[in-house]
């Protein structure tokens, strides 16, 4: 019955053409803005690049999580828009490719604290043995300051000279070394891409063969996958962001990045659901209740993000241990305080009150606005988490916006190419009709 519905063909539509153009233009503009950053300071370039990479990865991972979660809990409301989520998860392989430049050239700039630590494993350490961990932290700060001065002399910010690592970093060498880092990169991406391909393969196969076994197979995989996903995502967040300042540690950091993933993914799902629905590419019976549900996800996970990031802050603030506080002090000093306060208001306070209202969640244009708002807020959150680690003199430069343009261009292009190749509604899914009938109130 439902298979008789005629869907508009995305690959032949005007939306496809314009998306192709916009994506291409944004990527070109972004790349043009980014090149001068490289010339100005390599360190700034690589931190900006890492922000862009982590942002794109967060969309892909969040979307992958939503796919697995919806299968696991048997969600009905999200079935009509599942293809949107599946296409967005296609950003994971793109992120895997984007990570390669970091592995090849950026690690010396980003992870200079520990990337060469393993070379010192046999000498140097003995001399430091009398030092307590507290001294080591002090040394580390002194070194950071020293490094900054170095940057002044060498405007290219080339971290070519490596200091002997202190005792704390030496203790972390078994985990934080180049070999293990690259190994984890391959392992994590292999797991995520394999999971994504398996879900997608079964989902697409159902379009031609209306059999429930594909849904069942995906549901079976989703339970163990979500467990492994949580583990790998936490470790990836520690690897790529937390190890920028390896003296610092926070046991909630993985969760912090995860909450951001959920925000970005639900915002992207909102944007593309609205865009495709308004263009007439989704099921005509889909009602505004679906928008409402996505809006709820955005609201809920944005509050979750605020809860997690505030908990992380307040625990460290209360305990007031110098081993932990310096991360936040770096974000309160030297002009970063205004960024921190702005982040709170921009990412939590305003969206919280805006998304409280049901009207905003059901009207496509307003929901689209809030989704874009939150995406910007989330990339700003990553900026706030990553950029201060570079210890640069200038906190913000307008050329950094080039990375946002680049990220937007990549998202648009990847989604557009994915959408052109896929049937945008899983017409044979056994839960599709229930999803279309779903009413949120």
């Amino acid at each position, binding site marked *: 019955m439902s298979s008789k519905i005629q869907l508009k063909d995305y690959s032949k539509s005007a939306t496809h053409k314009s998306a192709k153009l916009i994506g291409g233009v944004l990527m070109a503009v972004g790349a043009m803005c980014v090149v001068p950053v490289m010339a100005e300071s390599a360190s700034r370039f690589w931190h900006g690049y890492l922000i862009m990479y982590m942002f794109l990865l967060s969309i892909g991972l969040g979307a992958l999580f939503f796919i697995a979660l919806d299968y696991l809990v048997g969600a009905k409301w999200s079935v009509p828009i599942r293809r949107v989520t599946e296409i967005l998860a296609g950003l994971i392989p793109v992120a895997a490719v984007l990570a390669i430049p970091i592995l090849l050239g950026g690690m010396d700039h980003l992870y200079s604290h520990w990337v060469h630590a393993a070379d010192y494993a046999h000498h140097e350490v003995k001399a430091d043995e009398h030092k307590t961990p507290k001294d080591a932290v002090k040394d580390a700060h002194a070194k950071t300051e020293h490094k900054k001065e170095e940057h002044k002399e060498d405007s290219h910010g080339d971290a070519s000279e490596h200091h002997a690592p202190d005792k704390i970093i030496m203790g972390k060498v078994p985990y934080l070394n180049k070999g293990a880092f690259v190994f984890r990169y391959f392992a994590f991406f292999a797991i995520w891409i394999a999971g994504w391909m398996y879900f997608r393969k079964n989902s697409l196969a159902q379009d031609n063969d209306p059999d429930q076994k594909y849904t069942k197979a995906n549901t079976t995989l989703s339970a163990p996958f979500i467990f492994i996903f949580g583990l790998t995502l936490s470790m990836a967040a520690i690897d790529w962001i937390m190890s920028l300042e390896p003296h610092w540690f926070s046991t909630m950091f993985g969760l912090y990045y995860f909450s951001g993933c959920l925000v970005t993914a639900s915002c992207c799902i909102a944007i593309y659901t609205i865009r495709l629905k308004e263009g007439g590419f989704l099921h005509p019976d889909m009602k505004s209740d679906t928008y409402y549900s996505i809006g709820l996800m955005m609201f809920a996970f944005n509050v979750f993000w605020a809860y997690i990031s505030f908990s992380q802050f307040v625990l460290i603030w*209360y305990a007031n241990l110098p081993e932990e506080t310096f991360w936040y002090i770096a974000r309160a000093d030297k002009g970063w305080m205004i960024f921190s306060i702005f982040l709170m208001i921009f990412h939590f306070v305003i969206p919280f009150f805006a998304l409280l209202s*049901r009207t905003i969640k059901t009207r496509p244009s307003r929901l689209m606005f809030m989704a874009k708002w939150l995406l910007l807020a989330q990339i700003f959150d990553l900026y706030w988490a990553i950029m201060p680690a570079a210890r640069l003199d200038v906190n913000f430069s307008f050329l950094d916006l080039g990375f946002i343009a680049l990220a937007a261009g990549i998202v648009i292009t990847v989604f557009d190419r994915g959408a052109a190749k896929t049937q945008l509604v899983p017409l044979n899914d056994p839960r599709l009709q229930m999803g279309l009938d*779903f009413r949120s109130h």
Partner: protein
Amino acid sequence: MSRRLFSTAALFNTPDEIMHAAEKVSEAGYENWDVNTPYPLHGMDHAMHLKPTNLPYVTLIMGLVGLGFAVFLQWWTNGSALQLGAHDLMLPRWVERYPFVIGGKPLFSLPAFVPVMFELTVLSAALSTIAAMLGIFCGLPHNSHPLHDTDYMKAVSCDQYGLYIESSDPNFDEAKVETLFKDLGATEVTSIYRPFEQKPGFISHVLFFGFLIATAVGVSGKAYFVYNNLLYARLVVPGYGVIKLDHIIPYNWMVNQPRLDAQEESTFFKNGRSMQNPVANTVARGYMPYKYAGNPDAANKDTHNPVPMTEENLALGKKMYEITCSMCHGDFAKGEGRLKGNLVPPSLHSSKAKKWTDARMYHVIVEGQNVMPSYAKQLDEKERWAIIHYVRALQRAMDAKESDLK
């Protein structure tokens, strides 16, 4: 038939039928009507053309009130930027402020307040939402309802879907409504009457209940304050003095108790005292009387120290010395204690102290000497002897012999 009609009700068999019926009834322009189903039907709001409820505004406002209250509460109790206490503002004592510095944080430190702000926001929003929903939007408490105890109610709370239009509706016309229901495919159409015509008596009137509650609260509250005042009441008689009234009021918060206080008169014992000496030739459990009580010279002749000089006991002595003795006598027993002032205790390295036996020193700990009070309550016997061992060790350390240099 003298019973008044309350409503006309119809029963339907499937959710789709009731959804359709609700839509039609709503479109026909009826206002006072409702739908009863055994479980919530998604989409019913839409079918009934219900306006969104105002309940979320109650939640929002009360949430903000809770938030504001949390900020105010914590700002007030944690002391002040204004440096004003309850006393300065002529407020009662139970709203006193406590400007304690905790963990070195400022008195007004927002990060620490956020959890409480969050909790009170949620608490206030949730409780007032429920209260407003039940009390205002659902119109509870309700003594009874005409729909109760009808076959209609039995059906819709079991396996059927019902819809009724009240006779108070401006468009209500019994015959028309019945045809409408029949056309919509109702399996059964019934008229529901009010159970009795009797007007509710004044006992079930809201005002009467309010009066009762107000009286109860007022009387008990007044009684509380009156009793409290009586408890501390004093009758001042000019030329005579002050008479305490606490023993004549009936309810005195246990100020007067049957137990005997120290130095009080007793009618139980022959000698009329509440305090009695122990029975002759007995010792209380765990309290061995000190044998040289009031006899320091005898103690100076006793050279015995019952606690052996072991590393463990020396450590105990050091610990207890530092806790109990060092603030006056100093960490090295030179009299260089941390209590700087008029009090200058003698050095324990004096030749007099060195010549004393352990039992003589023990005597000072137990009975005190000059300004020094007895420490028998703070230190048990083993600890006293251990401290003496430690003091001997200190004396020895300050008085190295030539042989030690080798």
